[in-house]
């Protein structure tokens, strides 16, 4: 900041601003701007609602908040909001675990063995572009309307990034790292365990991150069809009951959950791959 000030012809004016309390300084504060941005957005929303731009189906932000609190306390279809959230989360976690346990080993195998890659990749590339939602009807026909069909759809969505990133992670390990080990007289086992696995770990981990957010997106789609609990169910109920505030409240909870999941995964990554972290600047 000081460098910019030195180059500025109006140094004296700004010099004063730096030391004393001023409106300009407050206005340039990042957090103040955050608050302004959110308030403006809410005001615009409120205007839309009050002016009835979308007819009757635009709730005021304050109504959404009331609905949110209401749903947390009073059960909807026998379950409160946290219970619905947990229903969705449980599906995501089960499906994610299955996707990782199948996807990562398959991807790793494809990365190591060109034979395995040649056998698996045509099938994989055939299925990869199909959106998981396209499987809903089949899943219901095969597995019924219960949990299994929903988990199945989420697995379909979540397994793709697991396979893809594990495959590329293993395949794209820098050759010079392998050469360095080979020069030191290391054997193939050491190359795999001490070089290839740790070097590909960040890529695989990134795959898990994408996979988890895919799973969270897919669970809602799965729940839009014939679910009796979960966040998707809340949104369907909001539509059926003509309660847009319920839909928006559901959307907010979904977004917040996605945000918290990605935060948690980021922390996890910092813990598992400490070498990816930058040095904290002391300035």
């Amino acid at each position: 900041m000081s460098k910019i000030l030195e180059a500025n012809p109006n140094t004296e004016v700004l010099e004063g601003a730096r030391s004393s309390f001023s409106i300009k300084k407050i206005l340039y504060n990042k957090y103040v701007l955050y608050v302004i941005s959110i308030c403006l957005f809410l005001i615009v929303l409120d205007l839309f609602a009050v002016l009835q731009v979308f007819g009757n189906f635009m709730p005021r932000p304050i109504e959404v908040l009331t609905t949110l609190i209401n749903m947390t306390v009073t059960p909807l279809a026998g379950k409160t909001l946290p219970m619905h959230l947990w229903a969705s989360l449980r599906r995501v976690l089960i499906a994610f675990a299955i996707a990782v346990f199948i996807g990562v080993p398959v991807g790793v195998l494809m990365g190591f063995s060109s034979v395995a890659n040649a056998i698996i990749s045509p099938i994989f590339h055939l299925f990869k572009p199909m959106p998981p939602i396209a499987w809903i009807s089949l899943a219901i026909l095969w597995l019924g309307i219960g949990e299994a069909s929903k988990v199945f759809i989420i697995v379909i969505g979540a397994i793709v990034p697991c396979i893809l990133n594990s495959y590329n992670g293993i395949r794209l390990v820098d050759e010079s790292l392998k050469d360095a080990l080979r020069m030191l007289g290391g054997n193939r086992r050491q190359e795999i365990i001490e070089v290839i696995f740790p070097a590909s770990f960040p890529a695989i981990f990134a795959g898990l991150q994408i996979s988890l957010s895919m799973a969270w997106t897919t669970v809602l789609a799965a729940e839009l069809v014939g679910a009796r609990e979960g966040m998707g169910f809340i949104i369907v109920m909001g539509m059926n009951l003509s309660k847009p505030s319920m839909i928006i409240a559901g959307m907010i909870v979904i977004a917040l959950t996605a945000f918290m999941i990605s935060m948690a995964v980021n922390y996890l990554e910092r813990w598992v791959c400490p070498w990816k972290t930058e040095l904290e600047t002391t300035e």
Partner: protein
Amino acid sequence: MQACIQKEPKVTVNNLTKRFGNLLVLDNINFHVGNGEFLCIVGPTGCGKTTFLNLLSKLIPPTKGNICIDNVEADPKKHNISFVFQEPSCLPFRTVKENIAYGMQVKKFPKQLMEERLQKTMELVGLTDCADLYPSQISSSMEQRVAIARAFAVNPDLLLMDEPYGQLDVKLRYYLEDELIRIWEEFKTTVIFVTHNIEEAVYLAERILVLSNKPTTIKAEVKVDLPRPRKFTDPKFIEIRKHVTELIKWW
């Protein structure tokens, strides 16, 4: 041609030839490297310097001829050959200290010896302060120093260096060259250093091999017996440098 070696030969290269299909890259190369000698190899661009090193390191097999270390056919499993690549090749998931120790771990050095050599090398390359940093947290010249430290730490029979300072600016290179000589004098390692920089070769080497254009042969051998530390402005230094430059000219 090898008459002027005083040190006992450590590495012997006999009739080394390499073909890629019809392209003859190396043609019948013979030379010795003395025990603890610092040998520089210079040559015009594209003369197959890297191929040459890859053959010496046994990363690729020769078409004909062989390389012997202590009169035994060279074998990375048996012999201790170290390589410093053009690009720094530190393991990104190991700290500076773990990277330097890694070669010794692969070679199964006893724990105490490893700790000793680790401390000594880190001091020599001045990396003790960043022992616990990861390669992504240090500059690329420091990364290259880590790779060099790792290569020296295993006490190699033969250390191959492929233009390790090619990417660095001149000032830093001078500094690192001095550092390299210091480490080499301390560890008495046999070094083959490939470079296209003639000044660097004259500054570092005890002996310089000048390669010809493809198909590559050894065109000349220049002995550099200037006292250390050498000076770039020393008339003798300049004389040798001019001589090597003449030899290398292909135009």
